[in-house]
């Protein structure tokens, strides 16, 4: 089973991500911010990581940078779920090592499709 780490400080959004991905056959673990996400990622190696950008304690970009520094996550697909996808944010995401982005709001189908895409690639 493909495991996905979903990092978002919003409980309701996390719930939706978890529900959607589970219904699509993924196994999902939640984390509520970057710090939590990094901890979870060290406990278990995930196949795909989804992260919000704006979170307390540690934001998404920092999380991605930290994950990329871990040998197990050098090549893992990491997607940013962000409300802004301007060139500046994209440049930052790229520099941090994100695989791609998904603009919020998104509907569950789109999320599944995007995750399918990166999961199948890997």
């Amino acid at each position, binding site marked *: 089973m493909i495991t996905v780490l979903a990092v978002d400080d919003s409980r309701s959004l996390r719930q939706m991500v978890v529900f959607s991905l589970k219904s699509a056959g993924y196994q999902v673990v939640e984390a509520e911010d970057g710090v939590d996400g990094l901890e979870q990622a060290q406990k278990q190696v995930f196949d795909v990581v989804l992260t919000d950008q704006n979170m307390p304690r540690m934001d998404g970009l920092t999380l991605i940078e930290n994950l990329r*520094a871990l040998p197990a996550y050098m090549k893992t697909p990491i997607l940013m779920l962000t*409300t802004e996808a301007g060139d500046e944010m994209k440049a930052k995401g790229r520099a941090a090592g994100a695989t791609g982005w998904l603009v919020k709001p998104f509907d569950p189908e789109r999320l599944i499709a995007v995750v399918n895409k990166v999961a199948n690639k890997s």
Partner: protein
Amino acid sequence: MAIDISQFSEMFFEETEELLADLERLLLTVDIDAPDIEDINGIFRIAHSIKGGAATFGFSDLIEITHVLESMLDKIRHGEDVFTADHQEVLLQSRDVLKMQLDGLRYNSPVDVDKAVDIKAVLLSMIDKQALEPAPQVLKAEVNLVPEVQEISKFSKQFIIELPEVSARDLESLIEELSLLGDLTHKQEEGKCVILDLATDEGVDDILALCSFVLDPNLVKVVEKSAGQPTQVVEPPKAAPTISDDDDSFGFFDDPEPVVEKPVVVAQAEPIPVPTPPIPPVAAKKPAPKVEAAAVNTDATSIRVSVEKVDQLINLVGELVITHAMILKRAEGMDDVLYETLLNGITQLGQNSRDLQETAMSMRMMPIDVVFSRFPRMVRELATKLGKQINLVTQGNNIELDKGLIERIIDPLTHLVRNSIDHGIETTDIRLQKGKSELGRLTLSATHQGGHVLIEVSDDGAGLNRERILKKAQSEGIAIRDGMTDDEVWQLIFAPGFSTAETVTDLSGRGVGMDVVKRNINSLGGVVNIKSVVGVGTVTSVSLPLTLAIMDGMSVKIGEETYILPLNYVLESFQPSEANLKEINGTSSLIFVRDRYLPIIPLHEVFDIEARHKEPTSGILVVIASDDKRAALLVDELVGQQQIVVKNIESNFRKINNISGATIMGDGKVSLIIDVSDLLNSQYTRIPL
């Protein structure tokens, strides 16, 4: 596959409610002169989170304001604007509007649309409108955002095929041939190269063989993907909607290529460059300094359960406790030796059910902070209105109380706090004249005291004015006498219609209320007390039981009926002697106890039932007290004390005079619980003169 996102709405509502409470707390604690950037970030994040959730779950009303708020806060957090008291004020107002909108969505409560329009206009006037990006649109469930649906690849291998420059005709025929092997996607063209994605069951040799019809196979690069990670191919996701690549709501970066590529065939002379991921910086940018954030962690290990479910559980556990009592009663008189294991089992069962009951009850408990957290905002606003400076301190925020009590203590407590601000703490001028610090101090504290929780509202204000209270009481026709103790004088405040405020303000109202406060607190089984010293301050203390669902009761018998008296109202019981009885008008009786005449309430008359003893001298008198009122209840017999599970009658039937609820006894019979305050305020305590 359609996923109904409305199922997540409730979670969104709860979360937004919490975020709005956090917003208020942050706004009230932020230091206007030197705002902490973490606070500003926190405030920004709240607006951001609400907006994001609202957009996802389709609540466009909430987006309007949060979107503008976000823009405003973003500027502040990037140093393009300075946080001022104006910002604080308008943010607080925005919070209120958002709360109103949220409640409107959640409970269908009325929403003042003008307010929302107004606050948005104010917000817009505070920021450069040009800078505002268009607000995000909410998702509409019915719109199919997935343009095409493709079957997921059922093939075991994935290849990336890189072709050298070929003519369009050759490419077309190659694509046609390769398509026969499996799923082929024309991925991209880099310069003159063509890159194809192929999912197939065939091997590299087959692909190369096919290509050799059209071009030199030595120029073709074939790379198999994900061969080293079988787990990711074993169980493909069930649903596989696809997404069109011209959609800009998502995207992938190309250079930090995450795809694990394993070179299989290298038909070229030079080696293929294996993509190396960039080495990112290691350290986190921010060390995450805020303490509050750590508390959020508990969330991951807690679940949300509806109050109904918890109540149902408590009810069932209550039944279990009763069932145990019934078994215990049945087992009375059984031979200890013969039935040793059975009797031990019953004892064990009793212990377990009591533990279970305690655990179940604790699930209804909420920290008093839920109430306390409402006050900083209120205190700030009142103080500003009245030109006072007040520092609010809360203590014991983690003390837990039953949810039902929490909800019902809010109003009385609000009243007490208002009184302290309005009548207690002096204006800055007066405080300075009196040599006090200009900053008034208002403390809200909660502490455990036996089976009770003591909530205190204390201020360092003017204190109660004894003379003024007495004068006022007299003019209102409230009975006073010479030599009243301070405590007795303070109790006058609780008389209906009492007010000493010389100027009636719109804050504490017109003095009506302290009697209501007292009545509300009493109805919760609580007691309210005042201590005050002129010029030093006033402490109003409210003592509440931990829970309303369980109480200690004294069971008394009248004829064949058993009634329960809440134990905390019972002072003493005794058999009276003829000498201490006094008749008035031949109908009512008084009993002389501890230097005081108390009215005797014959319970058989109250409930209109047959009693064995109709004369006080042959029955038993139980003295009950609530507030300052006392009376002696005439009963036939005292049965005993026990913990009882209170069952509400009103919710199933209707309010019955002098009865506050019911319980099921150990023998399975129903007993009614006597409403002591009701009884003490009834006609039976009025002595006809």
